[in-house]
């Protein structure tokens, strides 16, 4: 132990520390300054940035002893009392905050930049924030916010909200409003799971299998149990309830016991709770396990072969999904041209900035409380209860803020383990994954192989589409059947095709499991079909935009599943708006022709185009409902409660806007409380771009029902027709009086009416594949154009411009919409150019963030145009439909199409391998 005296945010501290303690740990866990976030723990991402004597450093890899005698500034030290730093204010107003986990690091890094360069250029900002990553892709808004803050500091210019040419139309809905939780996020007060601790809390750690396939022969935990400081070591035998968990199919053992099989490297063998994290990890080394290796199958196509090793006894086929429409043979007979090719998409990692953390504790009444940043709190509750063998109501799941999810926080990871250890020890237990464990364990995006065969008339009319898909769902089902179902139905694109045959095989392998990830199978399908459409356009000598427009789904069109689209099909408008914007940039020249770059003889530029669609909601017969509870609180605020997750997408804002709109309240008079299975009714999973629609509708109808209840109560009391009672600006005007909501609450109580109610919203019915009826109640549509620059010698690719249009039905939260759409675009650029989760023979190569590169501010195109089409859907709130996923989907195919246009090389797989591309360009001799 050493004495450390240093000054943090102007306050001197003296602490006894260990020589190997990092500054981030001392700040977070010793001083409680949890605004400093640890995301990667490997000096890659910048989330943990603090200033040491004014210079930004990465506190996760900075020995605390080095801070002796120095002045540290953390995010908590930037604001002065209630007075926000201009950067903090600008980040809020410019929407530069999404999940918020990277926000403190971004702001602190930007603060150092402004100290050095008070009026930075875009290049200065890009250089300074180059290694400060944001997985929500908020970079464009961060750049705007930094400029706005600089203008305030230098010129005293007021920081204004940006304005948009979409949205509007209502008092609050459609208006630019700040995130309700943005202030906490920019000041470091925001609480994520790891920011919570309890007295006597223990720390959990998990022993992983390390082999992709094998059988546990022996397991000896006795030495680990004897290590001082270890409070519990548990194995499969210690699970009182159900061994397996899983979102749809319960095939995933919480712990793999002796005689049982491990099916991927991340399978859990044993869990430890100890006084410190170090002791818990040391204990793992003392556990002796012998796993007899079994032959592994690591490719979904191999897994389908008859002699393939079996991952599960039931076979490797999780699901064979079929779609048939018309007569496929007739369709190809009618075709004048037929094209066929096979496309590949790799595994991708969500890389949400906040690694997984679960805390469990047993309350006095025996109830187990679990704190976890989950996308499906009720599912977590049920699965924890089933593992513990207790009724559901004996478990309570509470969701702190979530630092990004993108689909990666839908499955169980540490929740059950924390609960088991808390039960065994009687003490609170925290299980925090480091980035390495996060990368190894949670489900990824499905790698796919997709063969597309299209038949067309020479004029470009599609007559037939046949696709065959293999999806790698890894060791466990997770949402694999659903994901690949969405890949199936989206594999013929947003087009009218009279004759369709699709066969999709969702396959188990010994790779890490795959599950939900933004785009949910439809992402992979879009890459294949949109890549193919450009080849078809070229072969038929038809403009690629025109080919898409010709076949595009319109109102009244019948989809490949036989669904008639009745309303809200804004695809053609998206195509036209995007095409016009591109033509404006190219001044009427063909955007798809390869152009030279002045002064850069080795470089060529060209545009690429793609379109896509994405269902809103679960669909295909799954009940898709949400309940909302609404209450007038004693202080006159109205609270809407739903167990739906805010993972950075802006749901709290949307629900607040809707509640305020319907009750004519100022925003600050509306509180939204989410994700608490004891106090908030089930809003269903945050998946499938469904929350604005489903929970939005639940909140809307709850508010309308409350309004009607207020009106009927007052109309009875004052003997007035309800239409003479007016709700306005947070007050209720009745009989010349202005009642506050607090007064309304009292009146309701006096009259025997509860000032609260529960509304259960049920979405329009959908039917499973193969049955008549609608598969989904709404679809969003998008068109995306990108301009790329290709270096013909090095194969380096850069996205120069991106112009896209999305039909969202209604822009309820324009600031959030802009941010999420730009962020989706940037994730799409990442998927095309920087990201690949590499698994070799079942072993994860990309097991550190330094090996899995998410796009940085450096990858932001020079110009981004986000355009919005608002073609309302009849049952959506104010016409709104899903938007969370679609913006990522059309980007990779647009990029590879643009690369072809620039340099003549077709690509059947992503990410773009510049090494390979350079070789192909050389072969082409261009």
């Amino acid at each position: 132990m050493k004495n450390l005296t240093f000054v943090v945010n102007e306050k001197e501290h003296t602490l006894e520390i260990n020589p190997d303690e990092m500054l981030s740990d001392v700040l977070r866990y010793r001083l409680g300054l949890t605004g400093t976030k640890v995301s990667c723990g490997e000096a890659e991402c910048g989330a943990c940035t603090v200033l040491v004597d004014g210079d930004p450093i990465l506190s996760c890899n900075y020995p605390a002893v080095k801070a002796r005698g120095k002045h540290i500034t953390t995010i908590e030290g930037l604001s002065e009392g209630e007075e926000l730093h201009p950067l903090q204010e600008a980040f809020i107003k410019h929407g530069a905050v999404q999940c918020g986990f990277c926000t403190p690091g971004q702001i602190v890094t930007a603060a150092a930049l402004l100290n050095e360069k008070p009026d930075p250029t875009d290049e200065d900002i890009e250089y300074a924030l180059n290694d400060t990553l944001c997985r929500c892709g908020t970079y464009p808004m961060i750049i705007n916010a930094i400029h706005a803050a600089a203008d305030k500091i230098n010129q005293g210019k007021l920081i204004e909200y940006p304005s948009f040419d979409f949205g509007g139309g209502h008092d609050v809905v459609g208006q630019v409003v700040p995130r309700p939780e943005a202030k906490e996020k920019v000041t470091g007060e925001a609480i994520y799971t790891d920011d919570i601790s309890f007295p006597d809390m223990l720390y959990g750690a998990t022993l992983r299998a390390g082999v992709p396939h094998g059988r546990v022969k022996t397991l000896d935990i006795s030495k680990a149990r004897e290590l001082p400081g270890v409070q519990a070591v548990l194995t499969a035998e210690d699970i009182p309830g159900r061994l397996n968990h899983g979102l749809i199919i319960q095939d995933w053992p919480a712990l793999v016991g002796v005689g049982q099989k491990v099916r991927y490297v991340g399978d859990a063998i044993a869990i430890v709770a100890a006084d410190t994290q170090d002791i818990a990890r040391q204990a793992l080394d003392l556990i002796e396990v012998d796993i007899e290796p079994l032959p592994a199958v690591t490719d979904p196509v191999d897994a389908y072969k008859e002699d393939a090793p079996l991952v599960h006894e039931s076979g490797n086929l999780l699901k064979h999904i079929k779609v048939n429409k018309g007569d496929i043979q007739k369709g190809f007979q009618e075709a004048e041209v037929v094209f066929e090719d096979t496309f590949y998409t790799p595994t991708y990692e969500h890389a949400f900035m906040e690694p997984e953390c679960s805390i469990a504790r047993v309350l006095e009444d025996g109830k187990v409380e679990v704190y976890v940043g989950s996308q499906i709190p009720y599912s977590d509750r049920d699965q924890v209860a089933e593992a513990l063998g207790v009724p559901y109501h004996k478990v309570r799941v509470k969701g702190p803020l979530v630092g990004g999810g993108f689909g990666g926080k839908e499955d169980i990871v540490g929740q059950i383990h924390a609960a088991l250890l808390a039960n065994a020890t009687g003490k609170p237990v925290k299980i925090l994954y480091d980035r390495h464990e996060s990368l190894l364990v949670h489900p990824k995006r499905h790698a796919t192989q997709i063969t597309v065969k299209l038949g067309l008339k020479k004029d470009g009319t599609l007559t037939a589409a046949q696709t065959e898909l293999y999806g790698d769902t890894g060791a466990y089902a997770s949402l694999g059947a659903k994901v690949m179902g969405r890949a199936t139905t989206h594999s013929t694109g947003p087009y009218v095709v009279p004759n369709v045959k699709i066969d999709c095989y969702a396959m188990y392998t010994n790779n890490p499991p795959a599950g939900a990830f933004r785009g949910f199978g439809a992402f992979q399908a879009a890459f294949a079909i949109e890549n193919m459409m450009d080849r078809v356009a070229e072969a038929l000598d038809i403009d690629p935009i025109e080919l898409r427009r010709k076949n595009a789904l319109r109102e009244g069109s019948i989809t490949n599943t036989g669904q008639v689209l009745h309303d809200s099909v804004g695809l053609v408008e998206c195509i036209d708006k995007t095409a016009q914007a591109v033509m404006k940039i190219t001044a009427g020249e063909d955007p798809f022709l390869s152009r030279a770059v002045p002064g850069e003889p080795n470089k060529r530029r060209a545009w690429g185009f793609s379109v896509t669609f994405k269902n809103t909601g679960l669909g295909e017969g799954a009940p898709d409902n949400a309940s909302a509870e609404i209450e007038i609180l004693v202080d006159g605020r109205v609270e809407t409660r739903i167990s739906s997750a805010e993972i950075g997408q802006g749901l709290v804002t949307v629900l607040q806007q809707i509640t305020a709109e319907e009750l004519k309240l100022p925003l600050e008079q509306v509180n939204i409380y989410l994700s608490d299975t004891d106090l908030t009714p089930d809003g269903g999973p945050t998946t499938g771009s469904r929350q604005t629609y489903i929970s939005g509708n639940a909140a809307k109808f709850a508010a309308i029902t409350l309004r009607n209840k207020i009106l009927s109560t007052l109309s009875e009391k004052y003997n007035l027709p309800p239409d003479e009672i007016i709700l306005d600006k947070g007050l209720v005007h009745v009989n010349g009086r202005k009642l506050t909501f607090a007064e309304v609450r009292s009146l309701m109580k006096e009259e025997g009416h509860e000032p609260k109610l529960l509304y259960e919203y049920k979405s329009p019915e959908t039917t499973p594949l193969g049955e008549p009826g609608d598969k989904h109640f709404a679809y969003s549509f998008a068109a995306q154009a990108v301009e790329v620059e290709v270096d013909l010698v090095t194969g380096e690719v850069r996205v120069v411009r991106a112009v896209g249009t999305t039909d969202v039905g209604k822009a309820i939260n324009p600031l959030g919409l802009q941010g999420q759409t730009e962020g989706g675009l940037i994730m799409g650029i990442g998927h095309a150019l920087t990201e690949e989760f590499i698994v070799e023979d079942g072993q994860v190569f990309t097991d550190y963030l330094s090996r899995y590169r998410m796009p940085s501010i450096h990858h932001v195109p020079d110009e981004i145009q986000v355009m919005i089409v608002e073609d309302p859907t009849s049952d959506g709130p104010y016409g709104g439909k899903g938007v969370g996923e679609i913006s990522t989907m059309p980007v990779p195919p647009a990029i590879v199409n643009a690369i072809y246009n620039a340099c003549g090389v077709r690509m059947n797989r992503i990410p773009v391998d510049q090494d390979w591309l350079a070789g192909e360009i050389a072969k082409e001799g261009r």
Partner: protein
Amino acid sequence: MNHFQEYLQPKSIEEALNDLSSATGSVAVIAGGTDLLLELRQGRHPAIERLVDVSGIDSLRDVRVEGDHIYLGAGVTHKEIISNPLLGEHARCVVEGCGLIGGPQVRNVATIGGNVAHALPAGDGTISLLALDTEVQLATAEGTSWEPLIEIFRGPGEVNFDRKKVLIAGFRFRTKDEKEGSAFQRVMRPQGVAIAILNMAAWLKIGPDGEIERTRISCGPAGPKPFRAYQTEKFLAGKKWDDGVYQQAAEILGGEVSLRTSAHRATKEYRHKLLPVLLQKVIEKAIHRANL
């Protein structure tokens, strides 16, 4: 986990050398910690009992003119390098190379000595220093000595001196004269680790007739050690840079390097393709600067 037991922060070179030699168990020098500390914490480096942090030694942080040389202390951070006007004038390639490393957070702690001591074949700082014909100052209990930087490397991650007895104290290279210029360039793979697929630095002096009077070219990874392209340098000496000379130089360079395929980073063929691209860029940039 206890990746190390002791973290010593000596204030002088003597103290640091003493901390090193007095260690009874494993010991290592650490500066910014951006490489070693991470490797230790990730279990990719065996635990070390004692770390000797030299970043608090003031004498290692000097940048100064010494006669016709520039002295660059080993403890100078990348941030200090890229913002130092002396280095901007006399060591453009080093400023460029160090400016590409990390973000400001890393550059604020990572030192040039740490980059060199890591002994990677493609360290951006190392490669850029080699183009300046840099000498390295090694400190021992007996005193200090100067050696050509190129001679301290033994293999990937390995140096020719005893790390328990010898400390890299600083570097020196000649001040820039009229008609001299240098440049650094690298190509990265967008996926995966932040180590250059190939990097290159060049220094050159333009002769009275506009010819390249002398040049020095370094690149990596072009073998197990940081590489100086002596044959290419020799060929270029006295030649006027034109397309023909460029083609021949590229061929000679391709012949003297030893490039290989590294999984998930680059193929040998691709590295060979990049070689002339980088050569052209660094030479032309250096010529441009020399003529300013």
